[in-house]
């Protein structure tokens, strides 16, 4: 059988190696190699979707080989309903962000090598089913990300990169300890995540609480959950556009995925115990993120805080411990990746022309950038949860799930919806509407490449908004199985 999942992980790595051996001057060839590698991953991930049996709740496309027998670590890969959409999301955004990287001019070789390494790490995180392997991929993501922000970033790139790195690392260290404790507590000792999901729920309650907290901190920093979010705006503002796309679109999902794959299925008693605090943090995230986004004058920072707000819905859905809430949380992760990925591309389009992100420097762009206005309006509307676009469905399911478990808290969360509408429309007003700002008179509308990167995202947003089952069908069975074990 063709090792589909291994190919997903190693195609980018092979691409990275190829680029290393290319002559330094041939920059366009490097770009094409990177594009070919990410394109191949995208094609493979689509193949994965078409081959995926969404009625089956077991792991699919499993690859399992002994790796380090001394510690019982396996090279164990597989996907199920919880991960398959995220693998596709990674591949899609990886390809699109690669196209958006076309304008990278300095140190092209290093950039694309690191970029492809990042792809390997991200994909690997979603399909590794051995805790040790999972941890390695998790850490592999960190290093290229650190350099990609630190070298190709904005003026405060070093501060942002170090902050991102140390913050995430602090979480990872806790996770490593938790992994070791889990390994040694399980009898027989195992790192197999599928096995652990059966064994770990029987752990002593107090141990569960401690382990849950350790994993929680690692994942919460990544999501990010309030109050672990302050690295995000810094990292986003400094990161180059394609890296922001991956940061918001994929990296944040690694945290959410961790909850789905490890925290909740492993430590079920602790999950029950922490449901209320998680919901509280989620709701704070929703409202607080929206309020802080409202106060921004920097376009990119506003979108960064909107991510904090949106990921609050993921936490609320998770905390509800219901099928509806879980479905909403997972769908919201996918949708947020698509929509916010698009938003960051659009911020980048404007930044390339204006070299500023201050909202006050724009105005009236609808008049001479109609295509840009079209995309920005659709992405904003999707982001503020307008029905008919994908963002609404995830939020609705999260709210319905949340309402079943925490009605009062969920009512507070709905206030976030008003503020979210407020800051997105206020942004649209300042960027697109009003009289044309003379600084912007010479900006050209989006070019073919830029349109090419946005079209698939917008199409997905519309299709999922109207037919949410296109995504929900992949995850529903797996989530039902997960919830019924609670």
């Amino acid at each position, binding site marked *: 059988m063709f090792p589909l999942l291994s190919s997903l992980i190693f195609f980018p790595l092979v691409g990275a190696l190829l680029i290393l051996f290319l002559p330094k001057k041939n920059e366009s060839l490097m770009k094409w190699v990177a594009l070919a590698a990410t394109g191949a991953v995208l094609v493979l991930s689509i193949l994965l979707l078409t081959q995926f049996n969404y009625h089956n709740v077991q792991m699919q496309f499993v690859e399992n080989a002994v790796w380090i027998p001394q510690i019982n670590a396996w090279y164990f890969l597989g996907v199920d309903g919880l991960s398959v959409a995220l693998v596709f999301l990674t591949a899609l955004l990886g390809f699109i962000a690669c196209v958006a990287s076309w304008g990278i001019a300095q140190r092209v070789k290093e950039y694309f090598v690191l970029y492809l390494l990042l792809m390997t790490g991200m994909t690997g995180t979603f399909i590794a089913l051995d805790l040790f392997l999972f941890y390695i991929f998790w850490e592999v993501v960190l290093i290229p990300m650190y350099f990609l922000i630190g070298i190709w970033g904005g003026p405060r790139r070093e501060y942002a990169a170090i*902050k991102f790195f*140390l*913050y995430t690392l602090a979480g990872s260290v806790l996770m490593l300890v938790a992994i070791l404790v889990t390994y040694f507590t399980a009898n027989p000792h195992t790192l197999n995540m599928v096995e652990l999901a059966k064994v770990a729920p029987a752990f002593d309650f107090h141990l569960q609480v401690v382990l849950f907290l350790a994993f929680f901190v690692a994942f919460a920093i990544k999501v990010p959950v309030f*109050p672990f*979010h*302050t*690295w995000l705006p810094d990292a986003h503002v400094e990161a180059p556009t394609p890296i922001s796309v991956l940061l918001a679109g994929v990296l944040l999902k690694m945290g959410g995925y961790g909850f789905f794959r490890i925290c909740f299925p492993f430590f079920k008693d602790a999950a029950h115990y922490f449901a209320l605090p998680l919901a509280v943090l989620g709701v704070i995230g929703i409202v*607080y993120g929206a*309020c*802080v986004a*409202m*106060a*921004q004058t920097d376009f990119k920072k506003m979108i960064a805080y909107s991510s904090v707000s949106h990921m609050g819905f993921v936490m609320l859905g998770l905390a509800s411990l*219901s*099928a*509806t809430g879980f479905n909403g949380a997972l769908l919201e992760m996918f949708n947020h990746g698509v929509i916010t990925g698009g938003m960051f591309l659009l911020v980048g389009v404007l930044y390339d022309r204006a070299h500023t992100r201050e909202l006050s420097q724009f105005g*009236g762009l*609808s*008049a001479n950038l109609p295509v840009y206005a079209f995309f920005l309006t659709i992405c904003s*509307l999707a982001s503020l949860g*307008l*029905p*008919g676009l994908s963002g*609404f*469905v995830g939020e*609705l*399911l999260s*709210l*319905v799930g949340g*309402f*079943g478990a925490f*009605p009062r808290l*969920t*009512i507070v969360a*709905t*206030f976030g*919806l*008003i*503020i979210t*509408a*407020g800051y997105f*429309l*206020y942004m649209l*007003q300042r960027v*697109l*509407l*009003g*009289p*044309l700002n003379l600084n912007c008179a010479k900006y050209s509308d989006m070019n073919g490449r830029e349109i090419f990167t946005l079209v698939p995202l917008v199409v997905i947003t519309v299709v999922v908004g109207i037919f*949410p*089952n296109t995504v*929900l069908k992949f995850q*529903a069975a797996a989530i039902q199985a997960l919830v019924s074990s609670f």
Partner: protein
Amino acid sequence: MVKVAHLIPLFPFLAFAVNIFFGRRLREASALISIIACGISAVLSLVVFQGLQAGEGSYSLGTWLFLNGKPLNFGVTVDALSVMMLLVVTVVATLIKIYSVGYMHGDLRYSRYFAYISLFTASMLGLVLADNFVMLYIFWEGVGLCSYLLIAFWFERPAAAKAGLKAFITTRIGDTGLLIGILLLLFSTQTLYFSELKNIAGDDWILTLAAILIFMGAVGKSAQFPLHVWLPDAMEGPTAVSALIHAATMVAAGVYLVARTYALFILHPLCLEIVALIGGISALLAASIATVNNDIKRVLAYSTISQLGLMMLGLGVGGYAAGTFHLMTHAFFKALLFLCAGSVIHSVHTQDIQKMGGLLSKMKVTGATFIIGTLAIAGVPPLSGFWSKDEILTAAWHNGSPVLFWLAVATSFLTAFYMARLIFLVLFGKPRSEMHPSESPKTMTVPLIILAVFAVFAGFIGSPLMHHAFQEFINEGHGGEVVASGFVIGLSIAVSLAGIGLAYLFYVLNNKIVPSGIRAQFAWLHQLLLNKYYIDEIYDAVFVRPCMRFCDFLFKFDAVVVDGLVNGAGAAVRAVSQVLRWVQTGLVQNYLLVQVLGVILFVLTLLGKLCFRF
């Protein structure tokens, strides 16, 4: 034949898709596409109407998603209420699109306009056909979006951009209430289908709360007090849009929602009382503001708020047929009035009625239809407004408290007054500024004439002359006959005529009858009304600015406290390492010294232990 109902929104949607993607190449043809699509929808609505008469009903198209394990369908409601709405929306929309050909002629974004207005028509029709709360909510937000896009259509004007934002946010406040109401309903009754509402029994307080929250959505959409502030500002949009969205159809969606979920409201008297009271307050409040406003469109906007308030009042006093009847007649005469206003603005390029005057002789068709619309809304028999308003007054008389009845009567009086004032100032007297008015093109006047015919005759189907056919229809056969009261009819006619008469005294005979001393005493009232009771200013001071300040505060909090803790942790680690660095002096002597001291300590400890043991 009702199984074609789901195609009704589809045609305008296709027109939207074609216009948005190929609009620039289509140019003038975009209007034609839009009109034809809407016309097809109108014909299909008639087909569905026939099917309904033949006894056919609602159907489902398939599952949208599963909510708490239960399927949520793409369902299509076909009943008297939805079919009535379908007919009104498609007919009025078609006429207004024809009118727009002339009104928007030469606009920079001509095809974009027809794209948006087609999308609106599609969403509105979808809203009407929705068979459950979630579907309704989806289209509900859809029409809100179109409203936003069309209010801010001339986005170069800052006022238009601001008005769009205000409209969206204000209605979203209501919509959030609606959403919470839907959630409450889902968890207390396990169903979101309208058809199952009538099976709900009991007066659980949760259901009462759900009904009130759902009504909050209606308050936002129908611009009722206290969420009415967006509608007057929405007049920044093209006038044809004001006619379609902000007068005839979308703003009536709130009334439609209450009618659609009426079974929920009659569970508890408190719900109906709130509906009636909010309606009554909105009706009088808006009507009083309309009496002093000098912007031709804003007068009509306040009038719309007021009339929608009357409909709510009608529903709230148990007049289900009365409220929906007035919704229908209002759609025709208010669309007519707005289109007349548009025709006037198109001709004289101002909206200030103090600068107009004497236009009747120059714009005969517009003027004549304007007068017809005015008589209809003022409730002069036998025009349509008279019949439907009379139904509401009758319902209030029989079932409502006296307060509600007199609120409605006072509103009727003020309505007649401000509308008469409007046409006296616009159409009669001498021109008060230099204008070069001329009659609008045929594409504009023909829809006016057709709507005027509706404004005159649409009321008869609900009148005793036709045995209350409308009421029979909307109540689906059972009940409908209203006991008419001679007193109510007499009073209704009297206040209408009195209102018109008073306006005649003031604005044609030129207000010499009221001594200036008395007028000076009421100057404060005039100021209060002119400033719309200062509600915008109050909201700004109480909600908007504190909210922005709070957001700014949270941002500072985030930077100083939350991020401060993170950076503080980093700084603390660095501080500790500074201390520890002092140990690593790099001098071998120091290390040796420590080593020797350590050995001595070790030996002493060992000795001590030995001594202790022996």
